[in-house]
């Protein structure tokens, strides 16, 4: 008897709630059933289209300047020679020597390795073979005067000809210092005409460009 009553009441209760959620299913539960799959497919397809778009935009562009919101170079390396030459000496005789300091500064928000090398070397009468140069790295002093220059390391010692032949680009340059955004160092370059320079060198010339370059992402990270 009890059981029958219970069964009927249960059935009645279910029947009465038929209009709202007779079985416990609602719109939300129905959606919940297939939502994950639909969402996954839509996102996969949508992102695929987005990747296609981004690839096209990145690699089919024919100009390197996409517009006015282009950020200009983020690191700049300068030296303090005010476009004057590091050395400009004539009538040099064996034993003659000269020295110049140049301060190289990095400005911007990129850190990187600074290296020194040379370009544009030309010599007559083998003068470059008869010039010994030393390059030192340190702090203090500058193009106007080497006063206050304190050396921290020796970068090169040898003939100018050997420097020009071996330090020709960033890859082969001397590994100098790592700039940590906005800092500077001073280089001291010293030359000396060899005492043993033969008379065949008389009237010879040497020309060279010393180059300092910073590249990012090479500081060991």
């Amino acid at each position: 008897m009890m059981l029958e009553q219970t069964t009927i009441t249960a059935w009645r209760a279910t029947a009465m709630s038929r209009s709202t959620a007779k079985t416990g299913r609602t719109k939300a539960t129905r959606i919940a059933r297939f939502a994950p799959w639909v969402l996954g497919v839509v996102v996969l397809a949508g992102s695929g289209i987005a990747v296609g778009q981004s690839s096209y935009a990145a690699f089919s562009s024919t100009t390197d300047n996409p517009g006015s919101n282009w950020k200009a170079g983020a690191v700049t390396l300068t030296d303090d020679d005010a476009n004057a030459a590091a050395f400009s000496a004539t009538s040099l005789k064996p034993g003659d020597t000269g020295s110049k300091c140049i301060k190289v500064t990095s400005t911007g928000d990129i850190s990187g390795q600074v290296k020194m090398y040379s370009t544009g070397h030309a010599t007559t009468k083998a003068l470059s073979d008869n010039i010994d140069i030393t390059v030192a790295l340190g702090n203090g002093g500058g193009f106007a005067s080497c006063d206050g220059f304190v050396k921290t390391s020796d970068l090169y010692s040898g003939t100018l000809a050997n420097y020009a032949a071996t330090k020709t680009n960033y890859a082969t340059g001397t590994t100098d210092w790592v700039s940590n955004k906005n800092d500077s160092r001073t280089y001291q370059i010293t030359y000396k005409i060899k005492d043993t320079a033969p008379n065949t060198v008389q009237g010879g010339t040497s020309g060279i460009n010393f180059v300092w370059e910073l590249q990012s992402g090479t500081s060991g990270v």
Partner: protein
Amino acid sequence: MSATASIRLPLKAENPDLRDWLLLVVASLGRLLLSLIASLVIWAMVPVLFGLTTTTVASGSMEPRINIGDVVSAMPVDSSSLREKQVILFEDPAVPGRLRLHRILSISDKGIQTKGDNNPSPDSMLVSPDAVVGVGFIRVPSIGVPINWGHEGKILELALFLATLVLAAVVSNLDRDLRRRDREGRRLEALELEAETELVPDLNGDAPRAAQPNLFKRSLSQLASSRALSRFSRRSRLRSIGLIVLVTLILTGTAAYILGGAFSNAAFSSSTASAASLQAAASFGRPWDQATFHWAYSESSPSTTATDDAGSTLENGTLAGGVTRATADGNPYVTFDGTSGKIYSAQIPGAAPTNFALETWFSTTTTRGGKLMGYGNSQTGSSSSYDRHIYMTNSGQLVFGVYNGGYQTLISPKSYNDGKFHMVTATLSSTAGSVLYVDGVAVASSTTMTKAEAVSNGYWRVGYDNISGWPSAPTSNYYAGSLDDTSLYPTGLTATQVADHFAYGR
């Protein structure tokens, strides 16, 4: 008596729908994040499956088109089809072992010139076509940002990212209940459909014709069993969350492993330069420019040659016996042991010079004297015919002598065996006579000493030769001491020239 079984229908009484919708929306947001990240990872992996080199961009010199954290795949192409403006992935010539992603600026025989869009100037080194890995083909934005974090050691950011993924996994599980209820509801509906056709209800309260009463029992028991199941649902919920988290981490880890090894640099760069120009003097004004021979002794050991660096006719000397090389302040010279050391020239064809000057720097403390330099008829031994020589006496005085029917000599008043370097010059002019200079200053002269012995085909001897019979001849024919810049001039030198020679230094 109405026994109302308290059946807790699986519904909340107030605002059940709003709660459901909230759960659904929140879970969908979690799923959205997870599926977005998973999709980008999948798209980043597809090129890898096809064997395309895929790298994570590590720096920003190609912004704004290619950003740090983008995952870029390159398609290998024939070098002949490379064109300007293409973005290429290549082995960085400036930093061996690294890959660079920059745009081609120009192509020439010398190589490919590249430039980062965001760099003010082109890359300083040209790229060889062999170094090109491929042309940029696929770009999946930003999915490599966590890889860069890992590479840069940014543990905090990486941990936050992984925590976000785990959170999203948890959140996307919140609507699990909804799905379960939907499942149960579907089961109930199926059962009801069966029951309805079997029974006619009697709303008066009379017992319905229980044609299939067991069906209701069954549905009730099913309700009961599902309630029992809900007690276990917490455990299975945790299980499913755990499964999602595990799968997420495995996928992330695999992707990071495959992509995490390869980076490409869009390297920023900047450079500055300073020029240098040096010119040698037209004439070095060396004292020995006009010399017949000049020996500077600047060769390195164990050379036994004294190179003549003056004039066009080379008259080199040969070192023999106890002669050693030395250097003081970077200035090389030679030292004789006083018992066997000597330097000699090759045979000089023709007549010995009638006008000439002998010059050499010397430093000694000997008290036995010796020959510094002179002309003789023996190349290595003790000459039987010799003159035009400078020798030092036992007391350290210097003598210049020529043989003209008899011995003609000039002797320095002072001694110079003080261990310091001095310069001695002896000149003979057939018109003006002879002068002996020490350190650029005349110390003895004779206007009648104008002629030396007429001999030929002899040798120039340095450090040792016969002196016997000559005025104040020293105990030793071998000179014990040092010499430097030994020269022979083809004419007599003037006093000014000698002074200049001394001023020039050793």
